[in-house]
């Protein structure tokens, strides 16, 4: 799924500056436990989370996750966004809560573990 479609489905706002609309994700994971992300996530995934600290970005860096959607309208602080920009990670924020955001993406065809 292209990020443009993701942003439309979630009515999300993109907070990073780099071009993003044509980037693709193969799967998604909704999670607030970074160790679970580190244990289970496959490549080219999108992470949906309610946590907005720098460790989320570090975790994505380790896992080569290139897109993060912050749920419930959360917006990270400037240093977190800067870190994301440095890592080439696209950050979005949506007003949907985690469960709904995941459900909407799933309903529209974005699978779990790259199925």
């Amino acid at each position, binding site marked *: 799924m292209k990020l443009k479609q993701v942003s439309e489905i979630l009515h999300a706002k993109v907070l990073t500056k780099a071009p993003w609309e044509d980037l693709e994700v193969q799967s998604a994971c909704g999670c607030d436990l970074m160790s679970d992300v580190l*244990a289970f996530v496959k490549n080219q995934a999108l992470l949906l989370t309610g946590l907005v600290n720098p460790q989320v970005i*570090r975790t994505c860096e380790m*896992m080569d996750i290139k897109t993060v959607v912050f749920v419930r309208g959360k917006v990270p602080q400037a240093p977190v966004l800067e870190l994301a920009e440095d890592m080439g990670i696209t950050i979005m924020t949506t007003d949907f809560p985690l469960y709904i955001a995941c459900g909407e993406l799933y309903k529209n065809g974005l699978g779990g573990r790259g199925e």
Partner: protein
Amino acid sequence: MAEKTINLHYTIDGNNFTTAGQASSNIKKVLKQLGVYPEAIRKAAISMYEGEINTIIHGKGGEANVAISPETITIVFTDNGPGISDIDKAMQEGFSTATDEARELGFGAGMGLPNMKKYSDSMTIESQVGKGTTVTMIIKLN
């Protein structure tokens, strides 16, 4: 790949959650520059990051020493923290004594040590209660 062994040393600040992950980030960059194949980089990055976080949130800070040879990546974390009284228990998925502060950052699932074991080719833990902990992981490069 590295032609001879490269040794890297990192001090890990136990009081600063915002810099947590810098050592792992640096290792990942070095491995990429060396042209190590992606699967090994991924294994090393995950193992290193989980170890770095544990050194901060449980070990109260310490150091990491990483040796990259043509055959292996060896990662050693050392801290002078509280130690682990029951290593078998600590290795179980879901066991965690993480503080609320660590949990608020997304840690404390009790998955770190199992992840480190899963992603490294060998892992050993030496620990003494009240003295500290040393975790050694080896990832093969072939």
